[in-house]
């Protein structure tokens, strides 16, 4: 059996403009980031689908003490996509001093960022970003 959508395939598709997810044939739930089993019911009968790339902020923080090699301050959010699954990413084009609880439920569009990797990152760093929309 093949892995339905590997990390590398997910990243490569996103770099070409397509945010992919997996739709479950059994329960219709949509899963992303990809895994071998449906996030809801565990079935492995999954079909690739393209997601609209829009969602809503569920929570956030401003990182002010960062791990190497990151440079604080920056915002990390969890957003719930319109299709159901959630992603963690950096909210960009918003000042860390500007964000507050009112940003929870704000609409965002999903993007990505690539930065160089190091000895402990298993290759280049691909990360999700969010922009208000």
């Amino acid at each position: 059996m093949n892995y339905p959508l590997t990390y590398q395939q997910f990243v490569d598709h996103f770099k070409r403009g397509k945010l992919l997810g997996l739709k479950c044939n059994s329960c219709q739930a949509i899963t992303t980031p990809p895994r071998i089993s449906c996030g809801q019911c565990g079935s492995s009968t999954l079909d690739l689908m393209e997601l609209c790339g829009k969602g809503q902020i569920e929570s956030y923080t401003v990182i002010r003490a960062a791990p190497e090699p990151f440079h604080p301050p920056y915002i990390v959010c969890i957003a719930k996509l319109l299709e159901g699954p959630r992603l963690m990413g950096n909210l960009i084009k918003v000042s860390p001093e500007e964000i507050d609880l009112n940003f929870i439920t704000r609409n965002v569009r999903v993007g990505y960022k690539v930065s160089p990797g190091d000895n402990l990152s298993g290759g280049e760093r691909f990360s999700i970003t969010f922009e208000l929309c």
Partner: protein
Amino acid sequence: MAQNCQGGLVMREVAIVGVGMTRFGRLEMTNVEMFSVAGKEALLDAGLAPRDIQALFVGNVFATFEEGQSNLAPFLASDLGMKHIPAIRIEGACASASLALREAFIWVASGAYDLVMAGGTERALAMETPLATRTFAMGSDSRYEASTGITFPGVFAMMAHRYAYKYGLPLKTLKEHMASVAVQNHLHALDNPKAQFHRAITTEDVLTSPMIADPLQLYDCCPFSDGAAAVILAPFDQARHLVKKPVRITGVGQASAGPLYTHPDITRVLARERSAYQAYHQAGRTPKDIDICELHDCFTIAQIVATEGLGFFDFGKGSQAAADGESGRKGTIPINPSGGLKAKGHPIGATGAAQVYEITQQLREEAGSRQIPGAKIGMTDTLGGDLMICCNLILEV
């Protein structure tokens, strides 16, 4: 209750016959040295010799980064003189030592071994803060989360913001409630000679400390720590002849969950709710039966959420309960009389065993000036990673 049942198997009753623990803080000792000190203390406490121990399960997360040391467990067994026994390192982030204890419990309960040592060791202060922050963030999904620069405090910071949003609590109020957790745990640690901090702090100290990950400030966070703790388990029938006051392990639970982005509500730790249910069910106890609890206060919000997940307070009520002192020494459920991870310290590979060390001392009425009078039933709660792994034990005398 003569026998426990788990997974349909008839199991033997298991008891703690010895505990040992180093001081927590900056120790200037290696992982091997720290664990050996804790292990020797546990052997002495049990009146046992190294050759009596049949297996070792030890929690450790970062020895590879701290000291460039892998395959740690045989080094520990060898240093202690427990020659040629099976020695196994267990890694489950901050819950590692509790996982080690649960493994030891199962092996003794099953009848495969009689006398087993379990515990953990961690030397986090051997790493500089930026590397330590990075290694701790390795508990997040390396593919889809860590690349955002999320940190361990950052995860609980998002929990705090969601908690305020979900329950309609002004952030200022929640932060004051959270600060009361730090103040209380520092107060408790004053009476713990092995704690990392012996300094009372005020709400103002917490609220004026540097911001780490909004809304968590420095004093909302546990410290990086060095330290080790060890526990020796035996079948209860044997334990009665070994020591005056064996402490029975009447319930164990462990559960897991997916990466943080799969959690439907980050104010609820589903792995904890499942794990705690297993432990309560096995012990035949409910939250109301628990006299004392050492729980996973890696951050102040984490303690509030844990008191809810373990069933001590209703969901959404833990914050006010903390502010009202209900988890203080004289409260309805005394929480973290040791000072907790916040003030006792949090050498992550050792924490679960240190929690058991404290509960054992309390149940034996050997906790000195921090003794909770009349404590007969205690519970531990250890959380690992981004709400991904949890282990609970119920202990009784």
